[in-house]
């Protein structure tokens, strides 16, 4: 899948932001296999960018194209299709169903478009060290545990691009490395691209391209 950004800028940013940014106001083109690392200090619009790409917000100027179709022209049903089949996301604020267990949360996502069998949930949880927490309600889990569940959730569906917004903010480096290892295995399995937005450089991400926001 082709992802094209054309001269985008949040409507709530001043035009001057375009000058020093590698993304705002620029024309960029990404495709499967690209591993994009976006380094962005706080307040530069990292979360906004991920939300625009996942069409959770549309308050930006310029255009985002998936396979030459402008995201602004996608119907709600087409957006659902895109999120189910081609685009996966790890959001910074996690967003789990608090009353449901981690396993239920993961199964709700997995059944939508199963890329893996249900057993894979336990296997991935085991690798990331949250296997024993699978039956705990999400609201009773620590941020670190929730964040690992969210990473697993993003890997249960097929995708061409994986969008990640500070996916390791609540993990120590050892756990972050394990998670990255799993992510890269799954990305390679799908020959997908990654857009990974983080505050600083993470040296264990094999980026093909660095962009400063």
């Amino acid at each position, binding site marked *: 899948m082709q992802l094209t950004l054309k001269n985008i800028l949040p409507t709530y940013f001043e035009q001057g932001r375009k000058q020093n940014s590698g993304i705002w106001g620029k024309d960029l083109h990404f495709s499967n296999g690209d591993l994009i690392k976006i380094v962005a200090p706080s307040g530069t619009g990292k979360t906004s960018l991920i939300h625009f790409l996942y069409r959770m917000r549309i308050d930006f100027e310029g255009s985002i194209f998936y396979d030459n179709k402008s995201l602004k022209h996608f119907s*709600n049903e087409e957006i659902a299709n*895109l999120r*189910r089949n081609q685009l996966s996301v790890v959001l910074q604020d996690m967003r789990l*169903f608090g009353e449901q267990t981690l396993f239920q949360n993961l199964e*709700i*996502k997995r*059944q*939508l478009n199963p890329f893996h069998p249900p057993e894979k949930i336990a296997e991935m949880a085991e690798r990331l060290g949250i296997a024993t927490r699978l039956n705990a309600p999400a609201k009773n889990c620590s941020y670190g545990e929730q964040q690992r569940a969210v990473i697993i959730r993003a890997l249960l569906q097929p995708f061409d691009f994986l969008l990640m917004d500070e996916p390791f903010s609540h993990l120590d480096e050892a756990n972050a490395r394990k998670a990255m290892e799993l992510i890269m295995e799954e990305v390679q399995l799908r020959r997908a691209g990654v857009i990974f937005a983080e505050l600083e450089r993470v040296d264990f991400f094999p980026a093909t391209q660095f962009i400063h926001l």
Partner: protein
Amino acid sequence: MSLSYKPIQPLLQTSGKSSSRWFSYIGLGVGVLLLLCSVQMFVNIQKLLKEGSIRKDGHDYVSITKIITNETMGQPEKNLFHEPDIEDVKKQPFIEGVSPLISNDFRVKLSAGNMLPFSTDMFLESLDNAFIDTIPPNFQWQPGQQEIPLILSSDFLEIYNVFAPGQGLPQVSKETAMGIPVQITCYGRAFEENQFSGRIVAFSDRVNSVLVPKSFLLWANEQFGNKTTLQASRLFLKLKDANDPQLIQYLDAKGYKINRDKTLLGRNKIILQAIFSGLGVFGILVVILALMLFSFYLQLVIARSKESLQLLLTLGYSPRWLSKNVSGKFIPVYVFIVLAALGCTQIIQWAFHRFVMFGRPELSSFVHWLVLLIAVSLIALSATVNYRMVKGLLNKLY
């Protein structure tokens, strides 16, 4: 997509105490019951009063005569309607049409030939066809035709059947009467006899007379009668409403008398239909109110589950699939309510047929197919309304 709704269901906060949901269920039940019963009763009235209807094309048909007083007795010119009288009646805005009842201007004798030893002096009248309630296609006459078709008042047959046993005559049914050939003898100016054969082709509930085709009577009056101008003892009126006060005032002023009893049946039917139409409309209103109340409940469910639904959409759940499943959850309840109302309607219809109408053959103990159709349509309507509303609300969550 073999997607299961089961893991999604707990995310919707449908439990909780919700009086609006229960009120809407009760309202829907009552409204549907009212609607179905009204439709069924409407159908019953149609079936019961089909035969006796005096109204045709939504009009009342009445006949008027001049009031015969002691002063006018024996003065036919004062008791008959003349051309200027008829023209004046025609001019009145509340009268849609007028047809004079033309009567024979010669002596007529009617006998039942050899089959029944019965003979009587008779009168013949004719009326424009549009004013007769039952016109069979063979109610026609051309000069030279020996057989004259007759339309007889149903009342006359009834009167005959009342006095026949006392006279040693057999009682006859409508069908038999229509099969009996009758001899009609018309006496000319020189009292010569002219024989015709007559046959009853229909019975009229509206016109109290023996009707022959107008073409015959015009011809016969010219051949056998003496007068040259048109005179009629009765006028038939086509009215929008026989109870119009303007009409009553006009008739009183002119000294005309209206033959009202024949309009009563038609009028009762209208009143009954109006009552049940009113009840039906009320039923529809209650159904609409109940659906609205339920839509408030659904909006509440969606508002309370907004975060979960938003997250499901974020995860890639299709708004169409979610709407179908969220609204579909209530379909069994709707089906149950409508079926319960249908069941009650069926019991009411059975009881009405059995205990009120004593099994009259025109009616059925089972509900009419129209009632079933309405029940099915109501289920479809409520399901569609709910689906569209949920989908609309979900699309707002993007």
